[in-house]
């Protein structure tokens, strides 16, 4: 019994699996693509927000009268009222709309706000200080032990004794402190919307990862229903997890537009963007880890803390230790509340922190035993939490070849020095889900042969548009250029938000289903015309023909003319129910880094970065590889360069501008090698998401390479020159 929905047998596809240029690539490369920031309806006003200058305060009064006197300012609107508490610097207080950027800037300056100062805490790395300031939440605890406690035993006491015993019996114990600072999303297109009313209906050009899920979020605060709102997003200038929601400043833009009867574009200034529109939670850990003489970890005991900012939370214990699950483990997690903007999902929430806080400890075991890190990771694979031991093993072998690991390896701190420069190797592994979420696609076939795929998805730059076109064109045996893809409107059939790396599975499922169902209907008409059985027909090379008998065929155009006057529209639906084998979930991934470190300056330079990644069946390897390159570079960024720097006294985000918030540049990345791992076993699983997994491991990978170079662990990411020099100085004192 043939499956109702399937992918082409491996090696038989015309388009899928081959590298294709993205269909919107030229529009992007020549400035024609219109982003939310670019949309400019007639008579549009520009608007900006005033961010609160204090990290924690009460609003005593807001006076907007000065702003509206400024020539060119059309409207000022308060976003807070007297008595409101503000809990982070940059939280929007008011908005000003006007005829020009400069008029708006003057208007913002003319707003008078009185504040009452409140206590400030931003030192998320300092657990003792957080406890003293009463900024910690209830700790979460989780203990798994091989040995069960006797029925009458005090469980805590038993765990204490058992862990102490296991550590004592270990051949090697590492006691470490590690961490990873808060970073921001830094979308190059800031958060914002361009709002235009059509009577009582709102068109909201929103920079969003969630086209199908945001209309209602606009509607409720505006007293509308979701059907009155159309959210449009043709192109989005970066999201990385920070653009799922409708924010209060988006709603304010709509309110001002309604009040003044003109379209309003309100985009955040860069500094406000960094201060209020999303960041990644921090994580800091104290850990004791015990292993046998081969480096196999037997016991893990840790306490970690960190902050979600002004909302209470912290890195989930489920990722501690990361991927590896030794049989005995105890984890304690303490959330800290700070006066900083609430975090938002940042590409693979929890995982980069889990990796950076724990796979460094595994590497320190290798360092302490004088073993090859590769062997320690390999020997611990039997304890992976996701049944991907064999995948990791295969990927490690490929990565090692690409890195020339065996030839380059030296024990930690034992490599040759060129003057003050030493080099080193490091590795780490990661895991992610990436299964599909509900999605719907309408496939329309016109009697003239035109084909459209329509769904409320969005292309974050991952190549979603191109994938939808590829799946559709492949199904009908047409060239890529024959398919028109319509995405980016909430009026289209609902499709998943682009988070959790679910997009590829979601849109591929609903699109392939719709296309295969539509093809069956066309085939029925063709079969009747040709006097053959419909199940003997195949669509390939622009024709529908009897398999193995090319003479019995109709061109695609002639086949579509059989539809008569009306286009055929077929809806494909994916509901995460009976998996038909078009998509799956769960991937592995292995990364290796080679760095050089100058011991005199503390500067770390990337020499080479290698990643091997499985992702099931790959639709477009060209855009898939781009995401992998991108993840490596973003990983290099948070491993070496970027951090949010807060003034501990005032809680001010000190480096909230592009010039000060250090990101790598083109000359900072070294050589990057990406390899897709797609054996038959993975191809046959169908598509699985890729967006997040490759960005998880770089922190631990690069930290381990730096440690291997220096023989000293630089404990907290990013590994800035100062931190490298501090770690070296501390090691000399010991």
């Amino acid at each position: 019994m043939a499956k109702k929905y399937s992918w082409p047998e491996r090696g038989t596809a015309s388009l899928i699996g081959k590298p294709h240029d993205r269909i919107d690539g030229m529009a992007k490369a020549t400035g024609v693509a219109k982003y939310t920031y670019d949309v400019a309806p007639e008579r549009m006003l520009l608007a900006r927000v005033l961010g609160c200058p204090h990290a924690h305060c009460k609003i005593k009064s807001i006076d907007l009268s000065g702003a509206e006197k400024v020539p060119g300012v059309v409207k000022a609107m308060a976003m807070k009222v007297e008595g409101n508490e503000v809990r982070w610097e940059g939280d929007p207080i008011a908005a000003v709309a006007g005829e020009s950027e400069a008029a708006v800037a003057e208007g913002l300056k003319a707003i008078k706000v009185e504040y009452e100062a409140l206590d400030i805490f931003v030192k998320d790395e300092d657990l003792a200080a957080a406890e003293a300031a009463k900024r910690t939440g209830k700790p979460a605890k989780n203990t798994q032990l091989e040995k069960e406690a006797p029925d009458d035993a005090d469980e805590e006491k038993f765990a204490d004794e058992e862990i102490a015993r296991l550590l004592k019996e270990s051949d090697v114990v590492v006691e470490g402190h590690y961490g990873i600072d808060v970073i921001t999303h830094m979308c190059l297109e800031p958060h914002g919307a361009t709002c235009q009313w059509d009577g009582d209906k709102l068109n909201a050009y929103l920079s969003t990862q969630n086209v199908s899920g945001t209309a209602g979020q606009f509607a409720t605060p505006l007293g509308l229903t979701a059907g009155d709102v159309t959210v449009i997003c043709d192109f989005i200038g970066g999201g990385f997890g920070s653009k799922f929601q409708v924010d209060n400043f988006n709603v304010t833009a709509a309110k001002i537009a309604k009040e003044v009867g003109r379209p309003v574009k309100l985009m955040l200034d860069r500094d406000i963007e960094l201060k209020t529109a999303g960041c990644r939670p921090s994580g800091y850990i104290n850990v004791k880890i015990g292993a046998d003489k081969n480096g196999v970890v037997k016991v893990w005991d840790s306490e970690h803390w960190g902050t979600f900012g002004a909302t209470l939370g912290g890195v989930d214990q489920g990722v501690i230790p990361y991927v590896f699950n030794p049989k005995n483990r105890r984890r304690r997690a303490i959330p800290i509340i700070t006066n900083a903007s609430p975090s938002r999902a940042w590409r693979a929430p929890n995982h980069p922190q889990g990796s950076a806080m724990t796979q460094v400890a595994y590497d320190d075991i290798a360092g302490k035993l004088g073993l090859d890190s590769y062997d320690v990771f390999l020997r611990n694979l039997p304890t992976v939490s996701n049944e991907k031991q064999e995948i990791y093993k295969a990927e490690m072998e490929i990565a090692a070849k690409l890195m020339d690991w065996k030839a380059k390896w030296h024990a930690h701190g034992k490599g040759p020095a060129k003057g003050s420069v030493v080099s080193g190797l490091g590795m780490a592994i990661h895991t992610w889900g990436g299964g599909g979420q509900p999605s719907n696609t309408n496939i329309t076939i016109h009697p003239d042969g035109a084909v459209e795929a329509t769904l409320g998805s969005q292309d974050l730059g991952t190549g979603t548009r191109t994938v939808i076109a590829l799946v559709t064109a492949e199904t009908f045996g047409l060239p890529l250029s024959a398919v028109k893809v319509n995405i980016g409107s909430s009026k289209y059939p609902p499709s998943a938000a682009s988070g959790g790396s679910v997009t590829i599975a979601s849109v591929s499922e609903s699109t392939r289903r719709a296309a295969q169902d539509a093809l069956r209907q066309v085939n029925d008409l063709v079969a009747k015309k040709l006097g053959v059985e419909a199940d003997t027909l195949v669509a390939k090379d622009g024709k529908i023909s009897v398999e193995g008998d090319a003479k019995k065929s109709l061109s695609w155009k002639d086949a579509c003319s059989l539809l008569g006057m009306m286009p055929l529209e077929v809806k494909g639906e994916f509901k995460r129910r009976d998996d038909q084998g078009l998509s799956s979930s769960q991937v592995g991934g292995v990364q290796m880094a080679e760095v050089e470190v100058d011991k005199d300056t503390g500067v770390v330079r990337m020499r080479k970065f290698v990643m091997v990644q499985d992702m099931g069946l790959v639709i477009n390897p060209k855009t898939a590889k781009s995401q992998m390159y991108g993840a490596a570079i973003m990983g290099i960024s948070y491993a070496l360069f970027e951090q949010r720097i807060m003034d501990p006294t005032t809680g001010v985000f000190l480096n909230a501008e592009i010039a000060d918030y250090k990101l790598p540049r083109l000359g900072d990345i070294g050589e990057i090698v990406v390899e897709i791992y797609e054996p038959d076993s993975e191809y046959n699983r169908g598509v699985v998401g890729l967006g997040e997994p490759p960005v998880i491991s770089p922190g631990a990978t690069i930290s381990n390479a730096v440690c291997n170079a220096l023989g000293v662990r630089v404990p907290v990411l990013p590994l800035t020159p100062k931190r490298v020099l501090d770690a070296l100085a501390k090691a000399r004192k010991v």
Partner: protein
Amino acid sequence: MADQRPFSGGGSNVSRRAFLKGSGAAAAATALATGSGVAEAADEKSKLVGPGATPIKLNVNGRERVLPVEPRTTLLEALRYKLNLTGAKPVSVDDSSGASMVIINGKPASANTVFAIACVGKKIQTVESLGGDKPDAVPVAFLHNDAMQCGFCTPGFVVAVRAFLDKNPKATEKQIREGLNSNLCRCGTYANVIMAAVEVVKGGKRG
């Protein structure tokens, strides 16, 4: 008390009063003709006008365009909101992102750090001029090498690569890695940008 930072969009932070006091920017404003005339040349000595909008003539992508601007209007704001040329993007308050890069008299410049009136009499080339029916080799190479993801930094990068290769047509990969650090990308397209630039040097064809 944190100071209120200026725009990180296409705006300027020059208040009208400071502007009229004769800042560096004001020097450029002397180019403006009085009355309803159109400012033609940057070196014309004439009475200061403003702070309101005055029509000026700009040469953009080989076309003379007349548009009303205030003295404090940046070139970026003028391009984006008066001429609907939105390829150059507002990303930073200064020139540290390269996203608003255009070519003025043959040299790359950030459109958000130059006033529109300072560009009177100069030749401005935007990324849009590299597209169309016969696109330039640089955007074609960006397409072939997938040197873009979200694409927000891409137009600026295309302009930067075009300007760099105009000056260094035989650039080596090492020179490309050293010479294109003016532009910022968050998605991580640098590896692909390098490949694209190398392809153009090797004789990437016009599309």
